């Protein structure tokens, strides 16, 4: 990462903190949605971009996290406990799902997660005694943390932003550690990695389980954010959206999820001119992007920077 890159990140951070003071409530809601989706996308990026596995269940994990918090907090469970429970539950479920699926090749995880998401949706919809079915759960309270009431739009946004910052740092730490090196290895050359003693199966499983728990954390924030959750929000559609977010932003790139989520949140607004055809345009754009620049928007940016640098080198060499 160049100094210019870090400067951009610093600027973005400042913008993120300052934004809610300049936006109306709907705008604050939008950026809060961006934060929550980024958390889920960071998780999926771990699974897809770093471990090279396709998960179509991230939407379901967001749902599990959301319902966990929505069901526990009215019972008097403190938000932090419910939040942690959401993440832990999704980690465990991810582990159980991934363990058999990753023993085989052929991207079986994609199919298992596809089936799992649909099953979760069916359970959420049918088990009304637990989840209230299609009527959903309303009014999940925003937490009161050590005296800080997060009921207001701005306050809750800062809570979400704080969680995002914490989880980002944790993820950055993980990627800097020997685990990060292991992920690069198993993504680039799993055969060589194995021959060096790297248990590719275990690292992939951990990436998937951790990625899934991040989905749970995102869901835990989502419930008090929108304060009305129902099964349809967590179906395959959300999983697809998150997947496209990670891809478009730049899979395997640390900042990819941030960019991808931003595009996904703003896109419906930008593409209002296409009158609701935006999903077609989005899907077509993804296909085109995969053909020319599978590394996503940030990949394109990297290429552009390289070109510029080369150009300036040449220009500098000419007396």
């Amino acid at each position, binding site marked *: 990462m160049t100094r210019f890159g870090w400067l951009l990140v610093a600027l973005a951070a400042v913008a993120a903190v300052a934004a809610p003071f300049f936006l109306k409530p709907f705008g604050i809601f939008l950026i809060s949605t961006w934060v929550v989706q980024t958390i889920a996308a960071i998780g999926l990026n771990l699974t897809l971009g770093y471990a090279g596995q396709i998960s179509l269940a991230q939407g379901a994990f967001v749902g599990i996290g959301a319902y966990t918090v929505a069901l526990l907090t009215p019972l008097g469970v403190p938000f932090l406990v419910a939040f942690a429970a959401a993440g832990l539950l999704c980690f465990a479920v991810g582990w159980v799902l991934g363990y058999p699926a990753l023993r085989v090749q052929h991207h079986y995880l994609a199919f298992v997660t596809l089936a799992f998401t649909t099953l979760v949706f069916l359970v959420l919809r049918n088990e009304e005694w637990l989840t209230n079915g299609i009527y959903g759960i309303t009014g999940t309270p925003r937490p009161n943390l050590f005296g800080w009431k997060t009921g207001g739009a701005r306050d809750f946004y800062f809570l979400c932003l704080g969680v995002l910052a914490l989880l980002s740092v944790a993820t950055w730490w*993980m990627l*800097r*550690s*020997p*685990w990060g*090196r*292991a992920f*690069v*290895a198993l993504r*680039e*050359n799993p*055969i*060589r*990695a*194995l*021959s*060096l*003693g*790297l*248990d*590719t199966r*275990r690292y992939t499983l*951990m990436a998937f389980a951790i990625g899934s728990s991040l989905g749970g954390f995102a869901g835990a924030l989502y419930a008090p954010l929108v304060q009305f959750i129902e099964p349809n929000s967590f179906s395959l559609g959300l999983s697809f959206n998150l997947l496209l977010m990670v891809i478009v932003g730049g899979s395997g790139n640390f900042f990819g999820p941030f960019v991808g989520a931003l595009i996904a949140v703003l896109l419906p607004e930008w593409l209002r001119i296409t009158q609701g055809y935006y999903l077609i345009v989005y899907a077509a754009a993804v296909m085109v992007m995969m053909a020319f620049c599978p590394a996503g928007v940030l990949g394109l940016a990297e290429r552009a920077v390289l070109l510029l640098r080369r150009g300036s080198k040449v220009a500098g060499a000419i007396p």
Partner: protein
Amino acid sequence: MTAVLEVSNMRKTFGGIVAVDDVSFEVRAGEILGIIGPNGSGKSTLFNCVLGQLQPSAGDVRIEGNLTTGMRPCDLNRLGVSRTFQLLQVFPQLSVRDNLILAGQEHQGSMASRLFGQPDAGLSGDAARMIEFFRLSHLADEQAGSLSYGQQKLLDAAMAFMAGPRLVLLDEPAGGVNLTMLGQLRERLHAYHAERNATFVVIEHQMEFVMALCTRVLVLAEGRIIAEGKPQDIRRNPIVIEAYLGH
């Protein structure tokens, strides 16, 4: 004294093709065993079966007396078995130093210590020593992908040695390397072998390399062992000459 590596009645078929046919041999501690043979004689398949890359159709592999047939390559590696690859397999995006740390990190501690411990897994010193041993010091921070082919071959060998293995299987280490590098590579392999009393098994095509490096040679043809002995005897063996010329 148990052999370091013992292969018994190894057999591997792909559909109707028999790639390895009832191969048995032993490798004793400290040996440098060469395996030669014309193209298609089953050398690489044999290697892959020993190393857990492929499941043998029949037969057993024993490492220091322990049955290891079909063990996953990563588990074998942690038992002290290492390999180099015919086609270059360094990690081009990582620096030379990071490649070496990667090669050693899975032998230290646990998953947890790797997550919460030092970013270099405490291996910076070992990596530096290995870099120096293979005379790559001036390239330590370069991306592995930017090294020359010969330098990458040296790095490949260095990675295989990083965890201090007792048994190293080298798959065509001399392939595509120019003469000067070849001399350096052979000399470094000898040095490592002497220093650690390691055991090597080498697949090679280049006769001079094999003759200069190996203490004993096995000849494979059409999946079977057709000759075995000291390098100079093998070179004069009429069956071996026939096998090579016949193909």
